């Protein structure tokens, strides 16, 4: 290869412009190889040569054509096979390759004659002493290629005889480049330890890099997108001084899930349509009984300044086990625990964990999802405090435009839905819920009268789906997740515009 390249460059040196077809003759080499040599010269970093491409058509010999070129046309081969005294036609036809074509062509050229009535069968004898194999000569010229003397008719005839075929050819016209030279150093593929130690890298040339190609992907593990968002939310709560609640109990009693939250026993949320109840173990068996009695009283008769719901509260309803419908059940347990301490101390609590709803499923609703919840208990907290802390929380997510809408929730009063302005949708969208826990919930627990508990919550899935542009929740959670999505998922940077 290197030799061909140098020979080629020598040819280029003496001419202003030279074509690859010329080089075929000059270097007596195959066109394809010459083109290859040009490409590799061009791959050098220096501008050694310039090329312009031209597409031409040309005739090329077929395999049969090549045989004819080497051995002569079928008719010539047959002519030469006939001995001076002639021979039996059957013998000739048997011995000579392509005899059928050769015979008819030789006959029409008038090179041979046949005596059909000869003794022992038809005999072939030479009619002339000397022939000129024009077919072979023409093919020589076509191969050269010197087509000037060849008639169109002849080409058509050869094409019909399948001795030649027409092919497209890309030829190149070469001129000297600005950095033309006769000798090329072989470029190095890459830096080696030897080059560094010997310093030979200083004089070497290196193959240019293809900067358009992608790198080799590293083999790596990946974290799940939703749980990456969960980590960020945990981090935000921790930054704000919130302590994580122990939410590792999916099974809860109706008592903690509903009754302790002053949610009446006929409330629709307690229907089997909305809640998964447990058949085994069907009931909870242990409650703080004095507290339970106070809960019963506030539901059925009121107290603590409340009218109550005035209905027949049944412990059987409270005992029913279920899959918790909200993590607020855990908040209730934590607040009860807090109230049992000798001296009340203000707390800030948070949790992010699974909750379960026996609801109708669709593209954005599953039977289980993650609830994010923040709770603050302290003396004299105000509605303004709740809005303020919610504002700081969402600010950490890059959301600053908030609006609060009055809402209803059985265990908070006042209750507020949290809306944020969605720049993309150009409208206010609901992003969470909040409120001040009712006295009917807190006072039976034994919390001091002037302690207020404020809380807010949202789902983990919704902001995650908005952030990553996922329309169907099943593409995010559960077995139908596409692993490629997990592999390709970027870092979770919530401050970079979540909504």
């Amino acid at each position, binding site marked *: 290869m290197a030799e061909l390249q140098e020979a080629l460059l020598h040819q280029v040196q003496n001419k202003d412009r030279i074509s690859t077809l010329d080089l075929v003759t000059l270097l007596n080499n195959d066109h394809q190889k010459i083109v290859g040599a040009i490409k590799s010269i061009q791959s050098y970093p220096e501008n050694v040569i310039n090329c312009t491409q031209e597409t031409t058509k040309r005739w090329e010999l077929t395999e049969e054509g090549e045989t004819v070129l080497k051995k002569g046309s079928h008719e010539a081969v047959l002519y030469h096979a006939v001995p001076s005294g002639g021979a039996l036609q059957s013998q000739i036809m048997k011995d000579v390759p392509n005899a059928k074509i050769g015979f008819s062509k030789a006959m029409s050229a008038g090179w041979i004659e046949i005596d059909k009535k000869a003794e022992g069968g038809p005999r072939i004898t030479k009619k002339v002493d000397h022939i000129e194999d024009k077919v072979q000569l023409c093919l020589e010229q076509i191969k050269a290629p010197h087509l000037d003397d060849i008639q169109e008719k002849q080409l058509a005839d050869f094409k019909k005889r399948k001795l030649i075929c027409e092919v497209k050819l890309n030829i190149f016209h070469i001129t000297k480049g600005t950095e033309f030279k006769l000798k090329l150093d072989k470029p190095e593929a890459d830096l080696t330890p030897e080059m560094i130690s010997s310093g030979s890298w200083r004089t070497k040339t290196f193959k240019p890099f293809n900067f358009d190609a992608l790198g080799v992907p590293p083999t790596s593990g990946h974290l799940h997108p939703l749980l990456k968002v969960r980590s960020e939310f945990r981090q935000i709560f921790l930054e704000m001084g919130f302590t994580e609640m122990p939410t590792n*109990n999916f099974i809860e009693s109706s008592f903690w899930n509903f009754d302790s939250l002053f949610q009446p026993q006929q409330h629709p949320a307690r229907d089997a349509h909305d809640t998964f109840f447990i058949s085994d173990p069907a009931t909870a068996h242990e409650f703080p009984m004095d507290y339970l009695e106070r809960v019963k009283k506030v539901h059925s008769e009121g107290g603590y300044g409340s009218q109550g719901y005035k209905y027949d509260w049944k412990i059987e309803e409270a005992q029913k086990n279920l899959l918790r419908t909200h993590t607020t059940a855990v908040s209730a347990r934590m607040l009860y625990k807090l109230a049992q301490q000798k001296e009340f101390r203000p707390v800030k609590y948070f949790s992010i964990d699974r909750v379960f709803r026996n609801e109708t499923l669709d593209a954005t609703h599953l039977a289980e999802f993650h609830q994010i919840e923040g709770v603050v208990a302290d003396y004299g907290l105000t509605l303004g405090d709740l809005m303020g802390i919610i504002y700081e929380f969402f600010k950490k997510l890059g959301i600053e435009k908030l609006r609060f809408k009055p809402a*209803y929730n059985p265990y908070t009063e006042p209750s507020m839905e949290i809306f944020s302005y969605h720049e993309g949708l150009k409208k206010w969208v609901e992003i969470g819920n909040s409120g001040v826990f009712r006295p009917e919930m807190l006072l039976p627990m034994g919390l001091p009268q002037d302690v207020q508990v404020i809380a807010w919550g949202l789902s983990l899935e919704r902001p995650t789906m908005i952030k990553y542009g996922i329309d169907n929740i099943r593409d995010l959670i559960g077995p139908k997740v596409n692993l490629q999505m997990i592999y390709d998922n970027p870092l979770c940077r919530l401050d970079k515009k979540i909504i």
Partner: protein
Amino acid sequence: MPTVGIKRDLLFEVLQKTYTDDQFQDLCFDFGLELDEVTSEKEMLSREQGTESDQVKTASEAIIYKIDIPANRYDLLCLEGLARGLLVFLHKMEAPRYRSIPPTEGPRQQLIIKPNTAKVRPHAVAAILRNITFNQDRYSSFIDLQDKLHQNICRKRSLVAIGTHDLDTIQGPFVFDAKPPDEIKFRPLNQQKELTATQQMELYSGDSHLRHYLPIIRDKPVYPVIYDRNGVVLSMPPIINGEHSKITLNTRNVLIECTATDLNKATTVLDQLVSMFSQYCSQPFIVEQVDVVRPDKTSITYPKLAYREEELLVEDVNKKIGIQESPETIAQLLTKMCLKSKVVENGSKLLVEVPPTRADVIHCCDIIEDVAIAYGYNNVQYTMPKTNCIADQFQINHLTDQLRNAVAQAGFTEVLTFALCSRDDIADKLGHNIENTRAVHISNPKTSEFQVARTTLLPGILKTLANNRKMPLPLKLFEISDIVLQDPDKDVGAGNERHLCAVNYNKAPGFEVIQGLLDRTMQMLEVKSCKDDDQGYYIRSSQDDATYFPGRCAEIVARGKVIGKMGVLHPDVIQKFELTLPCAAFEITLEPFL
């Protein structure tokens, strides 16, 4: 949250103002409502039946506002109540005073409750709307409100059922009794013939609307029924009224009865209905009383329409919201919310009158919320709580987060699977018997996917593999999450356990790959590989687990206790999870490493 459909033009007529949709949306937002949809009868029908149906072609194109109402605001469930609430909120009218009075002539009508009702539906209340004027819109609204109340506070008629009757077609005293179904016979609403209760139950079992209410009484020995003095049946609550006393556009005097299993709710429902529709009586907001005679012969007069007074400290109101308003301003704000208030005790207290329509107000905090709504939530200054706390992470979550990162760094990809699954997933498919799983069972799953809480993370991960068989191999997945097991020591009889499960799915099982991750995990947890030491971990051959291929299963022992299993999955397990290649897995509990 109930949604009511209200004709826009009618509403604007009552509000004496025309709003754009956006303006009305803003008004709703401030009042705690949500304009959910702007539509028309035609649009709603064509969505159900397609645009071709004749019913759709003739349907009205008048604009309907669909408005979401908070679940406790029964007073806003009809045009009359909603418009009244908004007009008072906008200072365009004063809240009316609802009163119940005896009839102008003669004694009160009576509704006598018989002892037998105790077996099925023990309570009843009643009232009369005198000289009412209906038109088509009012009539429709009256029917719609009953339906909305039935669906919400009445808990689909199970707690309370409402019956309304043309009083001029019947004669008191009325009797509320309960009788065996075959002894009850009358012509029910919109039917041609008299039918026994048994026949009606049969008839309505195919009725898309009424069949939902049949279970409330179906299996009772006696069914509730209300007669007039001549034995005419008014209704068979909570199923159907009689045709005889049906109200029409021409009805002038309406008897309303509510039968119930919850007397408090029945009283509230009756109060709501009469306070909304007494507006159309010749003496607006005045309702005629009915005496309800109970089985013990005591008599109570309804409707109660009771006003209650609550006393609030002005300081309390300001402090709980985080505002500084004068007692007078606060009193005005409350009046805006239909809670008439006056300042007492030198401005330190407010006396607030809670009307019968505001059954949602059961505590001072409800009144404080109304102050905040009237003040405007979005006018309240944001402040930061001064609460100062040192944060703590929940230990097992902290460990989980660190370990998730370590396992991902070891080249495994985290998945997130469901906590609920089918019994087969955790038992049959893994070659186990459900009886031995300690699983928690769900009593009311809508599909088999929600039969149990998972006892192992493995099935969820295998299902994730099955959905990703086209991905390049190897697939190395893990999950760290909670499983649930029955546990008699817990107050609810069950508890969570934090597990780590990992699988390797490839052309060869790769037991060594999984073991490598186990070794790495133990290294991260600072547990040494050591068979003799109580503090180390090791694996030992295990024979009896059908999840794993015989001879390719090991128990994982750490600090002297079995913490899980590992091995090459049994080909049966692989196929039951619709997989085709060998797979190795381990699953351990993380609880001992806290």
